[in-house]
């Protein structure tokens, strides 16, 4: 089954075409990477897929359903989650509260206003197990603003996983990380359950090749290549544009 299909998507900023009739699809369970130099339209593509931006034309299909006109919170309910290139967390809340809010998002208890959040055993247990599983248990009571950048990037991924999404978009998960932290986040990404479809934007080609089997290359809003990552890597146009080699 197709997890995501992007059909003839165009997106303008004034006169600038950020995306120009881009079409591709990603199979369920795939590890797919979007490559392209700065300004290629990668983040815009993510924003269009999640519903943060409306495309000028084209269609987005999520698990066989047309979601083009759907608000982003509705798309989340269909099993879509994302991380942000510029870390987007609840800065003034603790690590635990961050994960709790993600766990809560699609639970019935999100409507409860008369009972402490800590009195829902399922919610607390799920939060705790996610924190432990990803080695953030020690940081539970620490405010996110006081954690390291590497920990914040990890937390981004944990939060995306907490909603039990079926398709996760990772926007440059290793951006700005040191070598060690990059390895950690790469391992984390590589170990995501096989049932989850992963679409990622990555500048670090080593990471991209380690994590994904298929790739799409964008350049100035246009789709240049799409297919198995080895083929894409061998594509002469891609080598010229993206790697700067002939």
């Amino acid at each position, binding site marked *: 089954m197709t997890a995501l299909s992007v059909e003839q998507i165009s997106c303008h900023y004034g006169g600038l075409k950020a995306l120009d009739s881009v079409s591709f699809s990603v199979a369920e369970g795939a590890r797919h990477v979007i490559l392209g130099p700065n300004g290629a339209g990668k983040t815009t593509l993510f924003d269009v897929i999640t519903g*943060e931006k409306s495309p000028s034309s084209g269609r987005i299909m999520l698990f066989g359903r047309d979601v083009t006109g759907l608000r982003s*919170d509705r798309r989340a309910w269909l099993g879509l989650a994302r991380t942000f290139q510029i870390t*987007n967390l*609840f800065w003034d809340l603790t690590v635990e509260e961050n994960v709790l*809010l993600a766990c809560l998002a699609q639970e019935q208890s*999100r409507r409860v*206003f008369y009972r402490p959040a800590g009195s829902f055993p399922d919610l607390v247990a799920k939060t705790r197990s996610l924190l432990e599983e990803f080695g953030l248990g020690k940081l539970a009571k620490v405010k996110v603003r006081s954690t390291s950048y590497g920990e914040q990037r990890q937390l981004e991924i944990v939060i995306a996983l907490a*909603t039990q999404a079926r398709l996760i978009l990772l926007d440059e998960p290793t951006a700005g990380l040191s070598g060690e932290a990059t390895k950690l986040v790469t391992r984390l990404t590589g170990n995501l359950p096989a049932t989850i479809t992963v679409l990622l934007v990555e500048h670090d080609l080593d990471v991209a090749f380690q994590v994904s089997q298929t790739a799409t290359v964008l350049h100035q809003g246009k789709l240049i290549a799409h297919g198995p990552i080895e083929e894409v890597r061998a594509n002469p146009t891609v080598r010229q544009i993206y790697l700067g080699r002939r």
Partner: protein
Amino acid sequence: MSRRYWIPAVGLGLLFLSAVPTLLPRYAIDLIAQGMIFAIVGMGLDILVGYLGLPSLGHAAFFGLASYGLAIPVTRLGWAPWAGAGVGLLTAAVAAALFGLLAVRCRGVYFLVSTLAFGQVLWGGAVKWTSVSGGYNGIPGIPRPSLFGWSLWEPDAFYYFVYAVFVVVAAMLVLFVLSPVGKILTGIRESESRMRVLGYRNQLYRYMAFSLSAFVTGIAGILMAYFNTFVGPDSLHWSLSAQTLLMVILGGAGTLLGPAGAGILLVVAQNLISNVTERWTMVLGLLYVATMLFAPRGVLVLLRGLLAQRRPSS
């Protein structure tokens, strides 16, 4: 703040408040009753300012609307005082539900200005529409009701009535901010886009919190109308909104009990200082400047920090 500190502190505070009528003179009892009424406004406004991150400069609107909504049917149509309280609360709630549709679409300074405008329009209405509101003279002669056979004209009975409402509202709001919905409000304050892609309908939560905040403020408006047995356009004026907003900021936005404490203390301080000098607003201004310099996140947050330093282990 660790439970070790705040549970005894809140307990002592409540104990003191419950003993006020036996300990203090008449004048002080009235003062503290008035303080608790403002504390209710402070807590209601804190839901909006502290938890949701929307600074309102028009909360007097809901305060005053509830007072007028009580006063008009009771004094002009001869309705029972309790029925009037219902009308007052309903007026505040309906106004919040209607204005909220517009207000929750604004953020930051736009929200501030739209609430300010809303409040001032109502104030203007109360001043000009003399046949209904009594204009600058307001509406005097609001009767106090009886509760379980106790007349609230009895000063101690009235004090305990206000105290009971204050405690119940405080307890409910504490539960509210600890609840999933309360947590969700802080999430929306911190990052709307993150909440959206997690699947939250931010706008719905924002609308609901705005209405709740206004409703709580309306409760205080009812109490104030009973307390003064009078309502005038000052109860709708933006300067009252500004004072309550300062209360929230001084006490510590997002702490609920901070603004409540600041509400009581500021009313008491205003009266004590006004005995000495006419320049209360200047003192308030200096207090505000000092808070911004030394405790920019409010006095309660400062205290919390100091306590945490003394006990680095906890």
